[in-house]
């Protein structure tokens, strides 16, 4: 078996409500603050007497119990703007620096070995890959061909773009090489392993493409995929309780199908789920919640202990939602720096890597 590792970063865009994903049902303050948006204990699966998993995430429960899903509650960044776009950029750049954290990670690992070092599922390059030496962007492997695979065309294009010294020339090189390398993969379309059934959504279909790339063992180091979700997405200012279950079902079913489909390749893959911020503890007058701070992060890894997380336990720096524990306008505090979670994963995927190369300033932040 190949020893190459693949990191899968799932970003829940819109600010997912950690208090609905893993609800602190053992806390009276939670029920008081959320008369219409709380998750009732009956709609949850108990995890540790205080926290409970939303029942729509039931497919993930066994991964938690069997010690491969780490749940981090109170994860987030130091951003205080409560702006989606600012907070997403801040998280994906990992600070007020120019490029993305995944781009720095790829550079720190050494020269790009292939155009498919990084793959972003979607239409445009995410900020985490800004400045990346490689990185192809697509939604489906099948579509990734130029003009019906005409090699002469690729040759002409390669010549025209070869003289562009900037990012566009680099992007063209990546695109041409990726189209060539994906050619073989386009022709085979095996069904997912173990009867895995992905949600028929952009997210579900995208996860399936990632599984195909992993299984093909073509050297994909990092992949990104967004889950925007149907309906209103994660930005639940309005009628939150009505929309959350479907979002979580899509997320849970997608991740579980991905895990099943990976089959014997599971040992090589770590999946991280993150969001730009959580939501205010107290709900607003439209039965929704506004932008907050700490939220939930997941790490799904066969040996989650090797990425520095405790298996089968909800890690959180807080177990009390009373007013004096909240920050700002009434938010869950950020007790876990998301960078430390990612640094733990990178430590396993690239032993010897200095986290400072990817997350400048992390060491001093941890020391203070």
């Amino acid at each position, binding site marked *: 078996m190949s020893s190459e590792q693949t990191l899968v970063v799932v970003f829940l*865009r819109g600010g997912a409500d950690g208090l609905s994903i893993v609800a602190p049902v053992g806390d009276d303050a939670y029920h008081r603050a959320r008369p219409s948006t709380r998750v009732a204990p009956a709609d949850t699966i108990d995890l540790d007497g205080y926290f409970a998993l939303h029942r729509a995430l039931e497919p993930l429960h066994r991964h938690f119990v069997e010690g491969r899903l780490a749940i981090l509650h109170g994860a987030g960044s130091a951003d205080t703007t409560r702006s989606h776009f600012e907070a997403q950029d801040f998280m994906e750049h990992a600070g007020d620096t120019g490029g993305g954290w995944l781009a720095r990670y790829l550079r720190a690992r050494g020269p790009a070995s292939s155009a498919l070092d990084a793959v972003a599922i979607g239409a445009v390059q995410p900020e985490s890959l800004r400045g990346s030496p490689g990185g192809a962007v697509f939604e489906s492997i099948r579509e990734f061909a130029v003009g019906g695979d005409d090699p002469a065309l690729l040759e*002409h294009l390669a010549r025209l*773009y070869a003289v562009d010294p900037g990012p566009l020339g680099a992007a063209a090189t990546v695109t041409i090489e990726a*189209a060539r390398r994906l050619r073989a993969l386009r022709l085979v379309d095996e069904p997912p392993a173990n009867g895995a059934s992905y949600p028929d959504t952009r997210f579900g279909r995208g996860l399936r493409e990632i599984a195909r790339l992993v299984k093909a063992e073509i050297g994909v180091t990092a992949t990104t995929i967004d889950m925007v979700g149907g*309906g209103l997405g994660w930005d639940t200012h309005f009628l939150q309780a009505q929309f959350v279950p479907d979002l979580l079902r899509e997320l849970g079913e997608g991740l579980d199908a991905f895990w099943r489909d990976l089959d014997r390749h599971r040992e090589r893959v770590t999946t991280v789920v993150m969001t730009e911020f959580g939501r205010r503890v107290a709900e607003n007058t439209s039965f929704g919640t*506004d*932008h907050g701070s700490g939220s939930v992060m997941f790490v799904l890894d066969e040996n989650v202990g090797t990425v520095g997380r405790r298996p089968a336990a909800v890690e959180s720096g807080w177990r009390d939602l009373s007013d004096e524990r909240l920050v700002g306008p009434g938010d869950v505090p950020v007790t876990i720096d998301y960078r430390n979670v990612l640094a733990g994963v990178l430590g396993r995927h690239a032993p010897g890597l200095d986290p400072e190369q990817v997350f400048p300033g992390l060491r001093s932040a941890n020391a203070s």
Partner: protein
Amino acid sequence: MPDRRTFLREIGWGGSSLVLVGLAGCDRANESLLALLAPEPEGDRRPPDGAGIDAVTHVLNRVAWGPRPGDYRRVEGMGIDAFIDEQLHPETIADRRCELRVNEIETLQLPRGELYECSPAELQRDLARAKLLRCVYSRRQLLEVMADFWSDHLNIAAQKGECRWMRFADEREVVRPHALGRFRDLIRASAVSPAMLVYLDGHDNKVVHPEDRPNENYARELLELHTLGVHGGYTQRDVMEAARCLSGWTYGHDWRRFFTSRVAFDPERHDRGEKEVLGIRVPAGGGADDLDRLLDILCAHPSTARHIAAKLVRAFVGDPPPPGAVSSAAAVFASSGGDVRATLGHLLRSPEFAERRGNLFKRPQRFVVSALRAIDARTNGGAELVVHLRRMGQAPYEHPSPDGYPLEQEPWIATLLWRWNFALDLVRNRIPGTRVDRDALAGARPSAGSGWDAPYRNILGRSLTPLEREVLSGAGDDALALALAAPAFQWH
């Protein structure tokens, strides 16, 4: 029908009248009618032959969605300054050809309430179609550039609730009427637009009891995206105070009475207390007037002038925006009371604008529209065109969040594959509803003899580099597609 010779003259062998390519059914009849109504002037001109993009092409690249055959000659004739002046006053430009075409889209005329009788998918398709047709065909090009700019600035994702219908009305009632007008009028119209009230929950921002926590969704985006900008100096407290000012606005659509669609202020849902926004007191009891007080504070704030100026400079001059251009545009914006036309007039005549050519990476929509214009393709702006834009990540009106499609170049750089495939499909006539004159294009083959590069010089606004000459001359039938796929055509 003009013959092949006419078309060749048009795209490089000299100027000529508009080119008509046969389309099916009523479109053809309309085309003949249109041709009678608005013949374009005859004339000749030499294609650009400089090493860099010449000034006329430059202004067409930025003030318009790229040059169409005939545009170069016209702007050269009237002068760049006169062209900018004309474009700043779209009401003075006759645009019958485009209007006739767009008016075929019947939903465009429907009153708000009647839109609810249409399927959201139909409205979405018609709205995209209207945009693409106008971008390609309208003579009011700067208006279309600015409508696109504000449509992103005030983006509304059409999937949410009644936005599925009201997004349609927002475009014609908010964005287009104020595209070159006063910024405050634009923001005021947006604040009470049904689609915006629904999209950012303003319609449900209510304070009934003093301890109620109003929904702050719209208030935040109003400060962060629409006016001050995220680093504009406001605090979380300002967001919450603005939300209080905005509480009480509602939007109602009465399903029992199909044609009723109403924005109203409900004093029972409004926070009557005193507020303070950005250090300025909004006295208690202002009621509906709180909205205007708030917008006065926000729109006159220096951060707003800088934020809007920076975005305009990014769109028209360079990315990152040159600081000098931002300061001077912000000064004009502030001194003119937020006059978009005046600010643009200043910007388009600034040395920073004139100097920076070919340095902006085309967003997918600009790439597609400029390609259609460059080779005078005929299009119905239909769904098949949108499929291509969707693959490139910029289908009209499909951006999922309130920030609009990014103006920065980086996110778009990874879209090359789909641009190349679009160019190939376009030139090979594989996009249903969009046609190019293949016979005429055959003449742009390098084998056509000396001067074969003229159409390419028109497309790029400069002479070809030795490499471009070499590659294109060896590409046979694909030469034109490769010109559109080449790096040079990705910039404007």
